């Protein structure tokens, strides 16, 4: 087996099965949660009170707006799921944005045009309906992932990558082409324009909007997602996933049902992507096919790679790093290169991706941690 470059991770492989009362990984988790919650609260409070007229946007010189912090939270959820699939189970997905899109489109369709798919329209006005749809979307997306996962995950390496890519592209086209139906009267997905008019989320009469409220909801779910993922990683399933990543044959020899665990990882990652998609739909209050296309899938992989493939804690940092670079290139590049627009963004993005994969395939977070460890010694 070739050198396995995605092994190391936040105390999952370093710590032996804890004999002490407070095992090292648990303490690391607590520390991580405290730091992340503090960070989220700090940014939220900064935006709410704006001491001395300073808010998130002006603090970062207009590069990162409050809107971006919400997007970071949403994409963190997707990338955490992708981490489980790619980093731990070692299965490539170049079509993850399709699951993200399925979540978003389920929310959009069921909350704005439920009668088109044969569900009574009386439900649309109820405050709990979008929340129910969110869960429904997760179930739908998970079921689809299960159905395609069984045959697809028999493939390995390049072939799995191509198959997931193909599925991703197909789903995007389905969004654009009205699910492939030729019904003029029933415009389900709204074609290239997508679906507008998605309602905001509410609890009773309490609307989760303006953006400050939505921010807390998104980050609450993101942190719950991270904690659940860490639980999976440290469970029997997590060990099985890592085992099949290192060597599928060896894992099978010791009695791991590799096919089942791979499919399970795909389904879980699809459900993460789906709920994030629902949050995205209610955040933007409109969906269109573009944010869920092939390039979006790639961007998700890059985020996972930069944060560290097998590092759940790396996810928010990977997402934040990529979005920050995007915004920085978009807003500042014209200062470096006169007259440069958002076009150079793509070049910088591609070059960065290649560099990261050549020089630190384990991800930036893991590499920084290693360097820090060496320094503290």
């Amino acid at each position, binding site marked *: 087996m070739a050198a396995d470059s995605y092994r190391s991770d936040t105390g999952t492989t370093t710590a032996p099965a804890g004999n002490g009362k407070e095992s090292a990984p648990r303490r690391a988790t607590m520390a991580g949660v405290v730091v992340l919650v503090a960070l989220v609260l700090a940014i939220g409070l900064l935006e709410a009170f704006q001491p001395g007229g300073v808010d998130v946007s002006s603090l970062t010189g207009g590069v990162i707006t409050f809107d971006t912090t919400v997007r970071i939270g949403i994409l963190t959820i997707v990338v955490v799921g992708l981490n489980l699939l*790619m980093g731990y189970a070692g299965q490539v997905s170049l079509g993850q944005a399709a699951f993200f899109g399925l979540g978003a489109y389920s929310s959009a369709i069921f909350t704005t045009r439920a009668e088109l798919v044969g569900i009574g329209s009386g439900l649309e006005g109820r405050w709990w309906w979008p929340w129910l749809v969110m869960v429904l979307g997760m179930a739908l997306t998970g079921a689809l992932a299960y159905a395609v996962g069984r045959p697809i995950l028999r493939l*390995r*390496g390049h072939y799995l990558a191509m*198959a997931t890519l*193909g599925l991703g592209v197909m789903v995007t086209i389905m969004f654009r082409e009205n699910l492939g139906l030729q019904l003029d009267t029933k415009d389900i997905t709204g074609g290239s324009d997508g679906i507008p008019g998605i309602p905001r989320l509410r609890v009773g009469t309490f609307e989760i909007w303006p953006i400050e409220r939505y921010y807390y909801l998104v980050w609450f779910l993101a942190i719950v997602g991270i904690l659940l993922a860490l639980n999976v990683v440290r469970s029997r399933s997590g060990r099985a996933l890592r085992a099949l990543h290192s060597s599928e044959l060896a894992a099978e020899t010791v009695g791991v049902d590799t096919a089942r665990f791979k499919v399970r990882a795909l389904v879980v990652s699809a459900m993460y992507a789906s709920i994030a998609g629902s949050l995205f739909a209610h955040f933007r209050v409109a969906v269109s096919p573009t944010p869920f296309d092939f390039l979006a899938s790639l961007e998700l992989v890059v985020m996972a790679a930069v944060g560290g493939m097998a590092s759940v804690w790396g996810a928010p940092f990977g997402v934040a790093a990529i979005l920050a670079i995007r915004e920085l290139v978009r807003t500042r590049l014209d200062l470096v290169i006169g007259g440069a627009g958002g076009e150079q963004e*793509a070049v910088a993005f*591609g070059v960065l991706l290649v560099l990261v994969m*050549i020089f630190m395939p384990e991800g930036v977070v893991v590499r920084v941690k290693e360097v820090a460890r060496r320094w503290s010694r």
Partner: protein
Amino acid sequence: MQRVSQRPTYKTIVSVAAAVAIVAVILALGAQKNFGPQQYGQLVVAGLGAGAIYALIALGFVMVYTVTGIINFAQGAFVMLGAMIAATIYGDASSGDAVGLVIAAIIAILATTLVGVAVERLTIFPARNADTLTLIIITVGVYIAIQGVGLVVWGTSAKAFPAFTTLDITDGTLRFWGIVLKTQTLWIWGTTALVLALLTLFLGRTLTGKALRACSVNKEAARLMGISPTRMSVFAFGLAAGMGALAGIVLAPATRPIYDMGLKLGLKGFVAAAMGGLVSSPAAVVGGLLLGLTENVAAGVTKSGLKDVFAFIVLIAVLLRKRGIFAAGTDLERP
């Protein structure tokens, strides 16, 4: 590997039945649209035209894969570079400038070949010991970067390149039995056939060609015979890039080249290569033609927007079969 069974097995019966069912469905759908032989003929001709381009692109995938074991997702970017560079050099030259067209094509091919070599040296070579996932992401990153450069240099507007026969933007057409055939399609078929023939000769008859094949059989053994696998890797990337550029150039008059044309073409080229089992050039060409035919006919009888969906259904079916459409293909389950 032995394949002894000559009698029709259970599997062959199932595949024949499936083929009959698919044809029946196509005819039924076509009947709804009142398709006659003429419409089907048109779909077939268009499909084989597109298929020959996929075949040409697939040859680049096969070249890189056999020598290095890498599936080069950046292959589509080479196609784009070939078309865009040629169109830029030819520019607004007055129509009828055949010499200018040839010069533009040659420069475009050479430039793209250099890009291919640079890609190998700068990104694949430093990461040669990385695992599959890392290499996949690297070639994808190369694709994004090259497409980004294309966007910066050429912007979002499409270019124009003259048809080879008329040396004009409007192409000549041939008609027979009511089927319209653009003359550029003949050029595309001819180019694909020529490249396949030259490639076969090169791989079979020349020392370098044999060295390339040796690397694909066994890298270590090739090294012991004094062949440098790294040099062969550079060679394969350069050759694949050149073939990609050529595909882009012959395609350019039939479509209007644009900076993001490479993505879809690259994917289709890969599908074609995978259909052929990834290691055989003639099989890849047949795969390309079949792919073009399938997606065109299927989209023709249903909805044109679904063309790519059919291509990827073919891809997934091929991948799940775990070897190409020909039994001699590699086992696709192996990484």
